[in-house]
């Protein structure tokens, strides 16, 4: 599904070059539920951007569903994003002047689906996420959890293969965070690959695979069976702190 091979990425900061990713090798299979962790500056967001085709890389190869993602035109990558990837952001990033239903329907607009049809589909997704009554509310009338659910509905509406979530719970309290994670879990259960970036261990612990980045390299990958141990270590870490 996702196959990264020796990915390098550096940013030009004036005259300095900041080497963010220093050779990432990663396989993610269809249906995985993955979290990417790491301290700030470890390159986790950059990695997510590359996965989501929002950013390009300098060296290495990235195959998505067998296609090599490299040097694509904006047009082509936008189309591929629209078909393959759904995004969920920390700050929700709903369009403020569109109501919930219109926000959810937006990706279909870019696919050229007529208004009536896409609004109808959007309603179905909102209903799935328990937001039917909120369909005609503007984003600023909704709580953070509701907004994130709208954002998830928007990410799902184009039937993506992958959901990429950048700190999806970063702006939410813990109860709402768990709700959102439950939704993402359901999404994953339906066969969609979910990749989230987070710095919260308890959130990461709900995924089936944790990729820990450190200084632009993969530090460790913790798989499902080892999660219990990870949780224990984490609690232990908290106690000693």
């Amino acid at each position, binding site marked *: 599904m996702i196959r990264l091979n020796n990915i390098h990425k550096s940013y030009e900061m004036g005259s300095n070059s900041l080497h963010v990713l220093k050779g990432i090798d990663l396989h993610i299979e269809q249906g995985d539920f993955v979290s990417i962790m790491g301290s700030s500056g470890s390159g986790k*967001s950059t990695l997510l*951007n590359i996965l*989501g085709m*929002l*950013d390009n890389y300098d060296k290495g190869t990235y195959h998505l569903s067998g296609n090599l993602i490299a040097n694509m035109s*904006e*047009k082509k990558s*936008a*189309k591929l*994003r*629209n*078909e393959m990837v*759904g*995004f969920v*952001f920390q*700050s929700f*990033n*709903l*369009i*403020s*002047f*569109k109501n919930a239903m*219109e926000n959810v329907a*937006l*990706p279909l*607009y*870019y*696919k050229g689906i*007529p*208004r009536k049809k896409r609004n109808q589909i959007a309603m179905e997704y909102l209903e799935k996420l328990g937001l039917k009554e909120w369909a005609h509310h503007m984003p600023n009338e909704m709580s953070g959890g509701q907004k994130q659910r709208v954002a998830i509905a*928007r*990410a799902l509406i*184009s039937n993506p293969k992958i959901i990429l979530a950048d700190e999806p719970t970063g702006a939410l309290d813990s109860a709402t965070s768990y709700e959102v994670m439950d939704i993402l879990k359901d999404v994953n259960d339906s066969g969609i690959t979910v990749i989230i970036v987070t710095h919260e261990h308890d959130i990461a612990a709900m995924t089936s695979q944790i990729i820990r980045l450190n200084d632009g390299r993969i530090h460790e990958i913790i798989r499902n069976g080892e999660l219990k141990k990870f949780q224990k270590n984490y609690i232990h870490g908290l106690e000693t702190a």
Partner: protein
Amino acid sequence: MFDLDLWSEIVSALKKNRLRSFMTAFGVFWGIFMLIIMSGAGKALENGVLDGVRAFATNSAFFWTERTSVPYEGFQRGRRWSYENADIQYIRENVKEVEYLSPRLFGNFQGGTNTVRGERTGTFNMYGDYPDYFKIDRWTPVKGRLINEIDILQERKVCNIGERVVEVMFGKEEDPIGQYLKISGVYYQVVGVIHAETRINIGGGKKEETIIIPFSTMQTAYNMGKVVHFFSVTSQKGTKVSDLEEKLKKILKERHKVAPEDLQAIGSFNIEKEFVKFSALFLGIQVLTWIVGIGTLLAGVIGVSNIMLVIIKERTQEIGIQRAIGATPATVIKHIVAESVFLTVMAGYIGLSLGVGLLELLNQILIKASESGSEIFFRSPEVNLTMALSALGVLVISGIIAGLIPAKRAVSIKPIDAIRDEG
């Protein structure tokens, strides 16, 4: 290709960003509105002044006499003299450049009340004219007919009267045609009510208060001998009236023993010269209108660009989101440009309509005012449509550019940076 979905997206985006839309639109609206008002006012001034003279033959010149200022051939300076019938006859026969020639006599010499009909009396300007005069300073008959050659030949006691004369000397129901007026002691039959097409009035007074009788009748009836007070000429096509004016002056000086270097003895006036002055004036006004118009346009353009620059930030994030969920850069640019074009065209159209509407309102007021008799040198404000539309074109193009710059910027940065661009 009309894309209903695109337009409904645009309209809803504009509707939901009311302040932004309004501010952008207002800049354009104001630019167009001011331009319309400015150019309309300039045109109105031009119309106002030119209306009064337009019907006047532009190739006409007028002559009268003054006291001499140079002693000549035994005559002292300060001599009074006047033209005579023989002069008119001579010019008619010998000066081929003359198209129309019309001598004139001024009546109402004593001043005061000169016109009587039963119990009604009035004071009016009285002239003795040839029919050719109506071709130089145009008059049209409202009722009846103009004075003609036969009236001149037979020295008929007939008169043409202005509209004000009718009001004063006749009741509302009465038909003045065929009635008699006693003017300076002599009875004349009214043969026509006449209306002046110009507002230049030789001899002063209001043109509605004019009585015109045949030239020959006036000379005979009031014992004026062969004297001619005044005459008007127009030049043949291809001859400049200024040249004709000089030629006639020379002839007249020779015939009346006036010193060739005497600049005062012959009073004259030629419309051509005045028209040149007017033309220069209106060229000036037009240039001014353009300068101010372009200035206002520029202000409008700057206004639009300013607003657009202000909204870049807000837009940047919005565009980032749209791109993350599958909008291509082309779609994004198409949207923003369509938005600004829609906005500028709408605003421009409203500015255009309101400006034209206001001018039309002004026009109605001016028409009322001029009907009530006031002299207004400001009439029929009108707008050069080509100018207005090209101004609108400039605004629309600037709207596109103003929309394109932030759109290009937003598209050039990575979607993720745009999304992260908080607040």
